[in-house]
């Protein structure tokens, strides 16, 4: 487990391989929590403005080694941590993260870095209140990725590891290694496993149930922009558990 100091907010993260459906689910959760009148902040892996140009350079020029790729992603995470995630957790917001330290623990180890080294690198991050791991068989993920996107990217396929000349084959070998690392982390970090092969709305129902339970009795930071139903819960029926279906991929 990561450290768990006291802070007012709640941290909820989603993890899983590419094509596991985690981003779809966290997007639905984000909108639902907003409708509940919660103060919600969303942070995505590799999205720091400060680090963006360096990541772009490294990817375009294929300059990364497993260690520099790992360190730069940690830099990206840390920038988001110092400027957004930590202050918002302290302020009392719900922070949702699409990928978290566990992504590095899985992916960078699959790339060959030392598991203890990478665990130290992210040890400043807090243990989430809820960490969902979207488990899907490799074939399902590959099918989703190849049908939804033009092509798999070089580093996403782990082409830098020289596992195979063929991008799909390399992707499969690399993602399987990542799955193996995730599976080991379920117990280590108390990840909540979600069956990513179930229909989107069934998964979302389960997630909302667990989030509701996780937030029970907790007072969110007041949201002055909250929609009316959340401000006057007494006049309404209890929180609707009916998920709105949205475009899923």
């Amino acid at each position, binding site marked *: 487990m990561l450290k768990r100091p006291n802070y007012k907010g709640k941290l909820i993260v989603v993890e899983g391989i590419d094509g596991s459906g985690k981003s779809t689910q966290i997007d639905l959760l984000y909108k639902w929590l907003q409708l509940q009148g919660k103060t919600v902040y969303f942070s995505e892996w590799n999205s720091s403005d*400060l*680090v963006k*140009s*360096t990541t772009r*350079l*490294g990817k375009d020029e294929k*300059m*990364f*080694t*497993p*260690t*520099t790729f790992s*360190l*730069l992603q*940690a*830099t990206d995470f*840390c*920038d988001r*941590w*110092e*400027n957004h995630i930590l202050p918002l957790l302290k302020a009392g917001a719900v922070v949702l993260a699409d990928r978290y330290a566990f992504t590095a623990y899985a992916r960078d180890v699959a*790339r*060959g*870095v*030392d598991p*203890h*080294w990478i665990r*130290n*690198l992210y*040890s*400043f991050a807090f243990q989430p209140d809820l960490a969902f791991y979207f488990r899907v068989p490799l074939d399902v993920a590959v099918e989703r990725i190849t049908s939804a996107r033009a092509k798999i990217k070089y580093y996403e396929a782990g082409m830098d*590891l020289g596992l195979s000349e063929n991008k799909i084959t390399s992707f499969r070998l690399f993602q399987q290694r990542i799955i193996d690392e995730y599976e080991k982390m379920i117990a280590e970090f108390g990840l909540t496993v979600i069956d990513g092969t179930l229909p989107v709305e069934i998964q979302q129902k389960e997630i909302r149930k667990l989030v509701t339970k996780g937030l029970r009795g907790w007072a969110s930071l007041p949201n002055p922009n909250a929609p009316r139903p959340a401000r006057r819960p007494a006049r309404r029926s209890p929180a609707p558990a009916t998920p709105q279906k949205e475009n899923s991929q």
Partner: protein
Amino acid sequence: MSQGTFFGAGFPYRSLGDLPGKLVVLEGSDGVGRSTHIQLLRAWLESEGYAVSDTGLTRSPLTSPGLDAAKQGHTLGPRTLSLFYATDFADRLENNIIPALKAGFIVLSDRYFYSIIARDMVRGADPDWARKVYGFALVPDLVFYLRADVQTLVTHIVHGRGFSYWESGMDIRCADNLYDSFCVYQSRLIDQFDKMSEEYGFINVDATHSIASIQDTLKKQIRTLLETP
């Protein structure tokens, strides 16, 4: 160094092989004269017939543009800065220092990760965390610590490049002006270097002496290293 050793796990995905070169590090405060001594050492070593490669913090082509830009802004947090430097360091180690050592070069490194750790400590980082980040770093053959008091640094800075935001630690604002902040910040860094000196076995060199006398000290140690089989 022949068989390189790492502070921690190194780079588990690559075998290092034989490293016939030597890694020589010059550490010390801002304005202590490291780059002058590296230039002089380089000329001397080349005249003796050795191939020399030099490197220094923030020179990685991967991180240099992004890190420069980040340092111009005001959102760069202390740990983010530290990790950016770690990325720079790792890139130069894997793509620059190790290949040069493999080719039998003498690598003169203007600072190593010790400087980064010293800065981290002054900014309140956990010492254990910071040290473990550099588990991938090679143990150098020699680390010289050019040590000078703050007043000597001030003299060099005034007659050199002038006081700067980062060298004065203005991100943590040790005082309300560049000069006072420089003095406080640099003395805190010196404390950290002094602590590390014993821990990592630095060779302490009194940098208040003349350039020629410092060169003599450095050359003597390097010659011994090169003559050791």
